[in-house]
Each structure stands twice: as structure tokens, then as C-alpha cells.
């Protein structure tokens, strides 16, 4: 009887194999990051700068002062939320590039409520958050249902929606929502009750603009992990992503699972927008998100779309971003090198044949070892 290697193992052996597989995955991820950092190092060297000084600033800078830690945590909160927002559609194997539109829609919704709607203290924080999540979810629903119901390409749909929402946002910040009587382009500040409490108030040390949004982000990650692993909807999203033909055969309504993945992802990106408005800037500013939306994709990828790992990846990547800025201030190496490092990480992570090659080699060695032992 023919059988595969796994079938011949007993439970103990299998667990050991699985642990080894996990160890390989983990070390591959670490190796990926190190390789990307090495590439950055070489690029700096090749351009005639001092890579040691640059990396010292990059890697130790963010922890040197408490407000730098704050800067890091504030960035990590937004970035992780954005990573989470794409990780969910990615689980359904939907390439949603719409985090940008969802974030801006969320920011607008949060700002409008937090600036103009008088609310009692606690509700003043929560209602704008809910509004932002709803607006983001709505922005997710459009490409989601277009894909699920009509089969319209989700990449094009999300990109178009980004282009539209970014322009509408720009118009609103420059026009109707602009602070009256001000020459600079930004909205009025949100009401004091709507502000997400700065962490500085909690810990009594200056932590910049970081705020309770961090806690909100951690809770969101935990909730999404539970959703994916512990709910029927999460199961349907996973099966849809693993093999949509199988999901359909099994009685799962695949379009609905796809739609939900977009809506949930959109809501989370909306929260990222609210975090920027209620926590970081306290108002709407032009180009609020920068390039964060696309960088969220990197974070999700690095974490293999596991919500809990997204947190770690988000913290790591924001650390690099924060370090990059410090590096640029302290040395003559541009912070853009961080984007190059990030790009190399993406390319290495998506080159799936690499870890598989390694795993297969290890498995082969083990099989050979076993045969020798049997003799």
C-alpha cells in the first residue's frame, strides 16, 4: 500500500515534524528580515555612506527617548490596523487594495461626527469610532459585492475606489470641511471629549501622540483572530480562500463569505482612519495616511495573514519606519532605504518556492535518516 510520509508517522513523530516545520517557518521569516536588512546595508555601503552609523540610528534610535517610543507606537497602531484590514480579505484569497479608500472614508466619518455632533463624554469617543467602522465597511462592501456578485476584478475596483475617495477627501478638506478663517488646509479640531486619550496621560511620561488607539488595535487583532479561528463565518472565509470550489460544494455561500471579508476588512481600515483623526492629528489633514495603506499589505504578508502575527509584524515594521526617520536626521542616509528594505521583504516572502525548497530538503534528509535507522 502506498502512503505518504506523514501517514506512517505516529502522533508524537508528527508533532515533532510539525514543530520543526514551524521552526523552519519562523527562522525563514527571520532570515527574510535579516536578508532584507543586509540588502539595505549593502545599498548604503554602495552609495558611499557609513552603513554602521546609519544602522545604529535605525535600530536603536526609536527606543532612545520616550517620545520616540510614542512615535513608534502611534505609527504601529495605524499600520497594524491597516495590515489587519487586508489580512481578512486575503484569507478569502481576495486581493483588496482598497485600504486607502476605506481609511479615508473612516477618517471623514469619524471627523464629521467628532467635530459637529455634540455627544455625552463616553459616547463622544465611541460613536465616531462606530461611524468610521461603518463608513469603512461601506467602502469595502462596494468592491466586495462587485466581486462576489458579478465577478468584477477586485483589484481594479478597489484601485478605482481609492482614486475616487482620495480626491473627494482632498476636496472636502480643501473646501467644505476646512477650518473657517484659517489659511492652512485642515479641518477644525475634534471636540475634546472625542479625543482618544494619549498614553502620556496614563504613564506620565511624554509618549508623543500615541494613544489608547493602541489598546483598541490590540483588541481588534484578538477579535479578528477569534473570528477567523473560532466562528463559522471565519471558517467560511478560510475555506473560501483555501478552495472556493470546495467551499461551494460543501454548501458555503461563497459570494457572501467574500463580501463579509471585504466588509470586515473595510471596517478595520475605517478604524485606522478614526485613530488618525481622534488620536494622532485631532483633525483632518491632507494626505493623512501617506503611504501607509500599501504598507499595510506588507505587514499582512509578512504575518501570513494571521491577525495575531500581524501585530508583531506591524510593530516591527513601524519600528523600522521610526528608525528610518531618526537615521535621516542623524546621518546623511535617506529614510527611503527603509522602503527598499520593506520591498525586499515582500519579494522574499512571496517567493514561496524558497522555504518549500528548504523544507523539502530537510524532509528528505529525515527520510534518509529514518531508513538508515530502520536497517
Amino acid at each position, binding site marked *: 500500500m502506498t502512503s505518504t510520509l506523514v501517514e506512517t508517522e505516529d502522533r508524537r513523530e508528527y508533532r515533532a515534524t510539525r514543530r520543526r516545520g514551524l521552526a523552519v517557518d519562523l527562522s525563514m521569516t527571520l532570515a527574510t528580515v535579516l536578508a532584507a536588512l543586509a540588502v539595505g546595508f549593502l545599498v548604503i555601503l554602495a552609495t558611499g555612506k557609513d552603513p554602521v552609523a546609519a544602522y545604529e540610528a535605525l535600530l536603536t534610535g526609536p527606543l532612545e527617548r520616550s517620545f520616540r517610543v510614542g512615535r513608534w507606537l502611534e505609527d504601529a497602531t495605524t499600520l497594524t490596523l491597516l495590515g489587519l484590514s487586508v489580512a481578512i480579505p486575503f484569507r478569502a484569497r481576495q486581493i483588496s487594495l482598497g485600504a486607502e479608500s476605506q481609511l479615508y472614508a473612516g477618517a471623514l466619518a469619524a471627523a464629521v461626527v467628532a467635530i459637529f455632533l455634540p455627544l455625552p463624554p463616553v459616547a463622544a469617543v465611541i460613536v465616531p469610532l462606530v461611524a468610521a467602522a461603518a463608513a469603512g465597511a461601506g467602502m469595502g462592501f462596494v468592491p466586495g459585492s462587485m466581486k462576489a456578485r458579478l465577478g468584477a476584478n477586485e483589484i481594479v475596483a478597489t*484601485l*478605482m475606489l481609492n*482614486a475616487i475617495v482620495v480626491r473627494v477627501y482632498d476636496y472636502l478638506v480643501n473646501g467644505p470641511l476646512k477650518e473657517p478663517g484659517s489659511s492652512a488646509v485642515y479641518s477644525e479640531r475634534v471636540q475634546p471629549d472625542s479625543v482618544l486619550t494619549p498614553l502620556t496621560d496614563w504613564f506620565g511620561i511624554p509618549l508623543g501622540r500615541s494613544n489608547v488607539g493602541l489598546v483598541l488595535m490590540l483588541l481588534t487583532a484578538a477579535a479578528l483572530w477569534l473570528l477567523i479561528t473560532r466562528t463559522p463565518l471565519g471558517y467560511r472565509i478560510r475555506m473560501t480562500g483555501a478552495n472556493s470550489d470546495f467551499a461551494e460544494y460543501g454548501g458555503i455561500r461563497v459570494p457572501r463569505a467574500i463580501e463579509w471579508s471585504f466588509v470586515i476588512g473595510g471596517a478595520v481600515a475605517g478604524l485606522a482612519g478614526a485613530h488618525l483623526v481622534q488620536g494622532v492629528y485631532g483633525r483632518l489633514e491632507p494626505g493623512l495616511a501617506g503611504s501607509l495603506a500599501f504598507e499595510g499589505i506588507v505587514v499582512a*504578508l509578512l504575518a501570513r495573514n494571521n491577525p495575531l502575527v500581524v501585530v508583531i509584524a506591524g510593530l516591527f515594521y513601524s519600528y523600522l519606519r521610526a528608525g528610518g526617520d531618526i537615521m535621516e536626521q542623524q546621518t546623511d542616509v535617506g529614510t*527611503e532605504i527603509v522602503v*527598499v528594505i520593506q520591498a*525586499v521583504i515582500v*519579494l522574499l516572502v512571496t517567493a*514561496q518556492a524558497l522555504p518549500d525548497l528548504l523544507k523539502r530538503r530537510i524532509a528528505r534528509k529525515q527520510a534518509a535518516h529514518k531508513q538508515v535507522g530502520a536497517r
Partner: protein
Amino acid sequence: MSSGFDVVLSSAFLAAALRVSTPYLLAAFGGLVAERAGISNIALEGQMLAAACTGALVAGYSGSVALGALSGITVATLLGLLLAALRLELGADAIIAGIGLNLLASGATAYAVYTLLGDKGGTSGLDSGTLPTVPLPGIESIPVLGDVLSGQNLITWLAFLTAPFVAWLFYRTTFGFHLRAVGEMPDAAASVGIPVRRVQYAGLALSGALAGLAGVFLSMGYVSFFVRDMTAGRGFIALAAVFLGGLRPWGVFLAALGFGAAEALAVQLGTLDVPPQLVSTIPYAMTLVALALYAWRRKRRGVGQVAPASL
């Protein structure tokens, strides 16, 4: 709305429409070739950006516009080949690898410009020149036609010639037949002896080269310098044109031209009392609606005729 009409019919608008359409046309054809070869090239944006930057830098330092343009196109071609290699040799997801290449281009160009020129913004401090424009001696003096056609950049002419070229390539050459076969049915193509990988590499190289030409136009035709992230999403819009055009050369041509014209119109209407940001959303909103209608029609008709690589 009579003022709007005047704008549309003015020769300045038509000339601008041709100019603005140029990068869309070239990049969209780049996207089309890749898509039909079975590998989505979402890295169009990065390839354009890398070409724009390389072109301006090389031209500025060497003093040769031609050398600059050639280097730019070469870099974009290499990025196309890199995408193909990641997909074919290392099993990478083409979309994600494309996102990675876009990031790489964005970071590397900004880093290079900052390192070489100490300028965060771009290469405006560097005198790199532009590619030549094409005067049309006979037509120049004809009132409207002369203003529209004469004095367009060389690359604009190339862009418009790309449509018949790609149509000819797809439907009249063995390579085109192989390319389409590989994209639609890779296994069947391999079984009849078509060198699948080689065709895909060639397709992605051509795709990168076209995107590179688009990028070179931006920094050496449209303007005469490189600005950080100057592609501003044009690669993505071009990709939308690929799908909107139904993955067919003339359809893509019309879609890309439409985007160009709409953008030129938004710029021209900016002089009127309409918020320019809102006007400029029109082509994207139209695309979104068209995408939905197209998908709906295809769904009603049953299976799509040409399956995009990314699905």
C-alpha cells in the same frame, strides 16, 4: 455649459488630451501584453517610475537624452523580467510580487535622488532635457489640426503607433499567437510544444519596456525632470484600462485614450467654477460603473471569453 463645449472643442484641449493619454496608452499596452501572457503586471507603476528616474538621471549626468531614455527603458525591461522570474522560478504571486516591485521602485528612486542630489523632491536641479518633438511641416500651418498634431513629443507618436503594433503582434505573428495561447491555456500550449516560459519572459520584457517608455515620457517629455512618485497612480489606471478594454488591443486603446481625455478635461475645466478634485473623479467613477456593467454582462452571457490572469 457653452464654456465646457468651447473647452472640449479647443485645439489646446485636444493637444493636451493626446499628451496626457501618452503614458496611459503605453502603460496600458504594457499591462495588456503581460495580462495576455498570463502574468498580471501590477508593477507597471514601479516600472514607469524607475524608468522616469533613470532616464532623467542618466540624461542629466551624461548629457545625452537618447542614452537616458534608453537606460530608462532598459531598467523597466529588467524589472519586467524580474517579475517574470519571481513568478516562474520562485513561485511568487504575481500581484504581490508586483506590489513589492512598486515599493522597490518608489523607495529606490527616492533614495537615489536624495543620495545623488541631496533633494527630497526630485531632479529639478539637474538639467536633463527632453526628447524631441515632431514638427509636421505641411500640417503645422493648418488652423486646428496643426495645433493639435504638430509639435507633439516623439513618444506620443510612438504611443499611438503602439495600438496597431500590438494588434499586429497579437493577431498576425507567431509570437502573438503563442503569447495568447500561453496566457489562456498554458498546459495546452506546453503540450503542443510552445516554449511557455520563454514566451512569458518575452511578454513581460515587452510589457516592462512599454511601461518604461511611458515613464521616460513623464520625466523627459511631459516635463523635463523627475519628481518623487511622479507616476501618481498612472500605472494602476492603465491597469484598469486593460480590463476596461476587454483585454483587446483596440478596446484598451479606447479605454486609455478615454482616461487621458478625461484627465485633460479635468485640468481644462479647472479654470471654471467646478472643484477640480471632483471633476477628476469622473473617469474613475465611470470605470467603476463600466467594470460592474461589463462583469454583469459577462456573467449573464456565461463564461467570459478571455480569462484575466489574475482571476
